[in-house]
């Protein structure tokens, strides 16, 4: 039978290939050696191909690619970017990180999710390799002491959470004494924010009703989660529902479920749900750790907004990743300029010394790291989704 032969063949080749692989490099991260003086490679971990947050992942990837191109041009370096999809999934992130550490990359950008950083932080620490995240906001990541080589260019939830909570209180998004429903998706990121916001809101006299759903559910199962939450938890006393999730799509679906059941409540999302393409329930508030620079006047912001078109659509979520990548790129070039080899340890040291002025940074604040890798500056951003479903930044916080 012919197929048998095919099969025998296929196996022959696998044997053959398994020998060739040992000759050929089997790592996807090896830098292409170029002539330029300062040439090495870095890697980005983001959920751009699989998982629930692909749009956000792609956004991060594109901004990272842009940052690499811009920095190489500015610093005269030739640094390549290895891409690793993590699907926002700690176990995948662990595998990827192991292969990044095995590769020649000297530093990494990402990963995106707090739960991923929790998982891979110790690995990077062991490898003495700096990694800068543009979206992981769980406070413990820096404070736990387990992730000694972790940096982030975004304010953590101890800043975002209180900001949001206080805004809710100050601007009376819910009548005093009413019930606020807060739902987590059983991920570290979400649970962290809930833990920060709940006490503040309770102190302000709100009744906080904390529920959770399984963030990994899909389709019909997800729908029955949502419709049951909407029916059984959103009572007449509820005026505000806080959805600190990592999936804008889920937030949108939950919003629609509420509308369908005729429940008129205000939604309040956090950075994970900040996605103008997906989460567009009018009247919703969405906080984010990055500014919307699409209309900004500063030179660097203009350059980014202009440059990003080459790689993909503009989105506020990606901006911090541009910043994170730039931090790494500048660190490497500074090592080279100092005449040292861009080794992992040297780059790590240089990242620690990062000092980018507010004007040069896309974050609107100067980029300097505390000893634990957190940003010195504290800033949060808040958006309101208008009737046309577009995000409008709220100046007064």
């Amino acid at each position: 039978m012919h197929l048998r032969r095919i099969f025998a063949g296929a196996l022959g080749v696998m044997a053959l290939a398994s020998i060739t692989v040992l000759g050929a490099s089997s790592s996807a991260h090896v830098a292409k050696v170029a002539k330029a003086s300062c040439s090495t490679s870095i890697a980005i971990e983001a959920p751009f191909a699989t998982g629930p947050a692909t749009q956000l992942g792609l956004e991060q990837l594109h901004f990272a690619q842009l940052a690499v191109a811009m920095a190489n041009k500015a610093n005269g370096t030739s640094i390549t970017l290895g891409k690793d999809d993590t699907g926002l999934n700690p176990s995948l992130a662990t595998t990827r990180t192991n292969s990044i550490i095995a590769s020649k990359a000297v530093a990494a950008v990402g990963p995106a999710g707090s739960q991923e950083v929790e998982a891979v932080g110790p690995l990077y620490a062991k490898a003495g390799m700096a990694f800068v995240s543009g979206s992981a906001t769980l406070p413990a990541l820096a404070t736990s002491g387990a992730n000694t080589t972790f940096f982030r260019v975004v304010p953590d939830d101890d800043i975002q959470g209180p900001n949001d909570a206080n805004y809710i209180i100050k601007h009376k998004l819910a009548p005093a004494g009413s019930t606020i429903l807060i739902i987590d998706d059983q991920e570290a990121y979400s649970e962290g924010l809930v833990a920060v916001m709940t006490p503040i809101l309770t102190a302000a006299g709100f009744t906080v009703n904390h529920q959770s759903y399984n963030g990994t559910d899909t389709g019909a199962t997800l729908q029955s989660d949502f419709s049951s939450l909407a029916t059984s938890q959103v009572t007449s006393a509820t005026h505000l529902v806080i959805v600190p999730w990592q999936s804008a799509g889920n937030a949108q679906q939950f919003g629609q479920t509420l509308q369908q059941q005729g429940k008129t409540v205000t939604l309040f999302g956090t950075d994970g749900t900040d996605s103008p393409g997906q989460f567009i329930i009018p009247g919703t508030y969405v906080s984010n750790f990055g500014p919307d620079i699409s209309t900004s006047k500063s030179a660097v912001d203009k350059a980014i907004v202009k440059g990003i078109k080459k790689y993909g659509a503009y989105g506020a979520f990606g901006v911090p990743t541009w910043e994170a990548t730039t931090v790494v790129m500048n660190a490497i070039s500074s090592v080279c300029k100092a005449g040292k080899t861009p080794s992992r340890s040297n780059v790590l040291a240089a990242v620690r010394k990062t000092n980018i002025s507010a004007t040069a940074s896309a974050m609107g604040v100067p980029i300097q790291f505390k000893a634990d890798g957190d940003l010195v500056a504290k800033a949060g951003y808040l958006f309101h989704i208008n009737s046309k479903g577009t995000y409008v930044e709220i100046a007064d916080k």
Partner: protein
Amino acid sequence: MAPIGVDEWVARSGDRRDQHSGLRGQLARANERVGWWPRLLLVGLVALLYGKVIVGGNVNYAQTGFNVVLYAILALGLNIVVGWAGLLDLGYIAFFGAGAYIYALFSSHAFGNLPLDTGGVLLPAVASIPIAVVGVGLLGLLIGLVALRLSGDYLAIVTLFVGQAFAEAVNNVAPGTLGGANGLFGLKGFHIGSAIIGSTLGYYWFAVIVLLVLMALLHLLDTSRTGRAWRALRDDPLAAEVMTIPVNKVKVMAFTFGAIVAALAGTIFAAQQSSVFSTNFSAQTLILIYACLVLGGAGSIAGAVLGGVVVTVAQQLLSSPIDSAYLFYGILVIVLIARVRPWQYLAAVVAAIVAFGFAAHAIVGAISHRAIAGSPGSSGWFAGALRHFVIVPAGSPLTYGNVLYVAMICMVIGVVQLHGIRRLVAVVPTVYVAICCWEARLTLDPGITAQIMIGAILIVTMAARPEGLLGTRRVEVV
């Protein structure tokens, strides 16, 4: 008296069917000539060679080697239940997971307070491994007892849900301790006193030793009364029962042994990854383990191990653009050699493909230069050779690649339909489209391509050789 000749002729007919001509036949016969213990030695030597010479400090190679051995061990365990006892256990993954989680609980801060990474229980390997193995062994016993009520597909169904329930459980139950979707990390590796296995290579060696010992023990078990009882059970439970074999007891034994092996693998896996997540024990992993077993040949120890090698290496190769290219073109060439006979036709077809390629490239180029401005996805010396052969538009737009992909699938289906000279003719454009599709699209997403290729390999294997590589053809009375 019936003439012996007739009788013997009937008796040997089976053998005659098994005889293969040519290289494969010789290989098969050679394979039979090699005894069991030499084979074990061979496996050991290969493992030694790989670890000592080839890995050479490259963590990636060490990781690959480790995965190979890990999957081989898992396949061995599955082989006890599925291959020998013939119980279709789709909940096997739960035993693997339980082993890993139990190890994790006793080697991390799970029992302390997780966010602050303090407190917790850190047992030495000599304690934690036995705890995991015994615990999971009992679990296997339990599932086995439950399974006594069920047979055939019903068993498969229930065990499938046991496996799913496990993943759901570790995801949702006691997130404070089991870590929920975030899993448990920062596990301490295998350690006794101050000695600790720190490197991937270290775990590779550990796993290799476990594998070799398991192979030996399981072989001895297979050729003992227990092994015979299991295989008798697989062939005919009722006859087995009547022939003095306590079927229920033997079934439960099979589950327990399978569970123990899986648990052992689980502890090694957890210690090496230094973390566990419920997603590590998804249906995907289960499918891969089954792929190893079925590809290698259910019922054969050597088969299970070979399956582990093939599946894991294939995945590793596919995950990197360069190596997956070797695999892709290798398979393409072999398929042509195997399918197109005699060699004159083969030569003709190959020549036609090359000509077709350059012609198409030239024509398209003449029409629009942009349409061929892109560079092939695979690097290495291929790229140069292919530059003037494949049509890859500038910036290789995804839509183009996607169209090719769909076209390729349709054409492959078409080719299978055609026969004789028509097929030969149809092969030419099909192969060309396949190459273009590979260069323009598939190499861009190695991860996805790997999954697709694995799926294809499974289908082709089952169609070509249901008994697997080293498995023996089985008859089933239905």
